[in-house]
C-alpha cells in the first residue's frame, strides 16, 4: 500500500497527464455513442481504433506510409548532414557568416510552405518535390542552431587549445564540435516537427502518395474514422520522436 502511494507520488505528473487523455477519450466516446455529432463529422474512438488496426491488417496504409517515411528520411538526413557542415563553417569563419547571416535568418523566417507552388513548378509532383520541402523546412533550424553554438564556444577553451599549439582542424574536432552537440540536438528538436508539417502539406498538394495524401483522400470521401486514425498515428509518431530527442538532450547536457 505504502509503495503504491510512493509510486503515485513519483509519477504524479505522468498520471495526471494520462488522466487528461482518458477523460477526453471518454467524453469523445460518449458524444459519439449518443450520436450527439454526426458520425461523418466525428467518428467514435472505438471506430478510429478499429480502423487503425485494419489499415495495417489489410495493408492499405503501407504504400503511403513507406512513401512518407522515405520522403522524410531522405529530406531530413540531408538537412542534418548539410546543416552540420555548413553550420560549422559559418560558425567558425566570421567573414563567411557575415555574408550569409541576413540571408539565412530571412529564409528561416519564411514559411517554406509558401514556396510550395514554386517547388512543384520546378520539380513536378514526384518524390523530389516533397523531399525538397522536408529538406527546406528542417535545414535552416538545424543550420542556425549549429552555427550559433559553434560561434558561442567558450573563448577560454579556445585559448587552452591554442596554448597546446592545437591546429585549426584539431580545435574544430576536439572543441567546437563536441561543444555544439547540445546545440545540434536542440536544432533537431525544432526541425523535426517542421519537417513533418512540411511533408504532410506537400502531400496534400501533390496528391499522389503519402500520409498527407491519405488524409486528404479520406476527407474527400467522408471516411472520417480512417482520417482520424492517420492523424493520431502522425501525432503519436511525433510524440515518440520528441520523447527520444528529450532523452538524448538530457544525456548530452554534461551537467555543468
Amino acid at each position, binding site marked *: 500500500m505504502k509503495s503504491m502511494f510512493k509510486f503515485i507520488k513519483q509519477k504524479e505528473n505522468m498520471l495526471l497527464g494520462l488522466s487528461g487523455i482518458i477523460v477526453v477519450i471518454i467524453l469523445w466516446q460518449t458524444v459519439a455513442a449518443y450520436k450527439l455529432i454526426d458520425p461523418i463529422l466525428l467518428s467514435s474512438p472505438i471506430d478510429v481504433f478499429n480502423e487503425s488496426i485494419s489499415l495495417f491488417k489489410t495493408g492499405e496504409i503501407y504504400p503511403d506510409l513507406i512513401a512518407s517515411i522515405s520522403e522524410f528520411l531522405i529530406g531530413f538526413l540531408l538537412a542534418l548532414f548539410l546543416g552540420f557542415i555548413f553550420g560549422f563553417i559559418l560558425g567558425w569563419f566570421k567573414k563567411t557568416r557575415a555574408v550569409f547571416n541576413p540571408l539565412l535568418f530571412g529564409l528561416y523566417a519564411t514559411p517554406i510552405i509558401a514556396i510550395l507552388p514554386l517547388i512543384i513548378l520546378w520539380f513536378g509532383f514526384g518524390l523530389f518535390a516533397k523531399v525538397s520541402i522536408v529538406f527546406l523546412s528542417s535545414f535552416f533550424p538545424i543550420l542556425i542552431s549549429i552555427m550559433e553554438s559553434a560561434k558561442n564556444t567558450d573563448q*577560454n*577553451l579556445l*585559448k*587552452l*587549445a*591554442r*596554448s*597546446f*599549439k*592545437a*591546429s585549426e582542424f*584539431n580545435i574544430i574536432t*576536439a*572543441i567546437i564540435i*563536441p*561543444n555544439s*552537440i547540445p546545440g545540434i540536438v536542440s536544432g533537431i528538436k525544432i526541425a523535426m516537427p517542421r519537417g513533418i508539417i512540411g511533408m504532410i502539406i506537400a502531400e496534400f498538394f501533390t496528391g499522389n502518395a503519402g500520409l498527407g495524401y491519405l488524409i486528404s483522400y479520406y476527407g474527400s470521401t467522408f471516411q472520417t474514422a480512417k482520417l482520424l486514425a492517420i492523424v493520431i498515428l502522425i501525432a503519436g509518431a511525433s510524440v515518440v520522436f520528441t520523447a527520444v530527442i528529450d532523452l538524448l538532450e538530457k544525456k548530452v547536457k*554534461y*551537467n*555543468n
Partner: protein
Amino acid sequence: MLKLKKPFIEIKDLSFSYLNSKKEQTNALDNVNFNITKGEFLAIVGPSGCGKTTLLNCLDGLLQPSSGKILINGEKVVEPGFDRAYIFQDPLLLPWRTVLGNIKFGGQMQRLKKETLDKKSRELVRAMHLRGFEYHYPHQLSGGMKQRVNIARALCVSPQILLLDEPFSNLDAQIREIMQQELLNIYDENKKTFIFITHSIDEAIFLADKIIVLTRHPGTVKKIINVKFKRPRDISIKDSKEFIFIRREIAKIIKDEIHV
C-alpha cells in the same frame, strides 16, 4: 674576460598595451626586465590588475609584446611551444571528457604517440591522487580534484617550463595548503622551470626560489627577492623568522604600491 652563460629565459624591456575596438590603449606592462634560471621556481606577485596574467600570456606566446622581447634559450618567443605548458586559473576541463580524456587532451593536440600518452596519463593519475576517478566527468569532481586534473594535463605534455596563473586561488584554505605541498613535490621530482603567479605572499615565499614583485598598473619590476629555504620544504618554514621577515617586506611594498 669571463664568458657569461646566457640565462635560460630573458625578459627584455617588455611592454604590452591592449587596444580596444576604438583603438584606445591600456598599458598593462611597462618596460619589464628580469631573467629566469633553468630549473628555478619563480613566483610573481603584485597588486590586482598590474599585468601578471598579461606577462604570463606573453611568456606562453599567446600575446605578442608591444615592444621588447622574451628569449627562451636565446630564441624569441613568437607563439606557444611544446616546451611550455600553461595552467590557467580556472581548471578549464572539457565537460564531455573523462578525467583521463582531459589529462590526455594537450598531448593529443600535440600529436604525441598514443602509447606514450596512455602510459603517461596513467602515471599522472597516480601521482595526482586521482585513482578511481579515471572515468569520472568534471562535474563529478571537487574543485581541488579539477585543479589536479588541470595540472596533470599540463604535465602530460612533458614541458620544460610550467606557467601557472593563480592555480589555487579558487580553493579553500586547507585544500590550498595540501595542493601547495603537492606542487612542491612535483617540482622536486621533475626539476622543471616553474613560473607561478599568486596573490598570496605566503604561497609565493613557501614555493619559490625567487619572487618578482611588480608595481601597480602598468606593471614593472619593483623588487626581486631571493628565498633561500632548503628543499624539500615543509609547512614548518612558515613559522620561521626569515619567512616572517620576507612576508613583511613584500607586504609593505605592495601596500605602498596600492596607496600612492
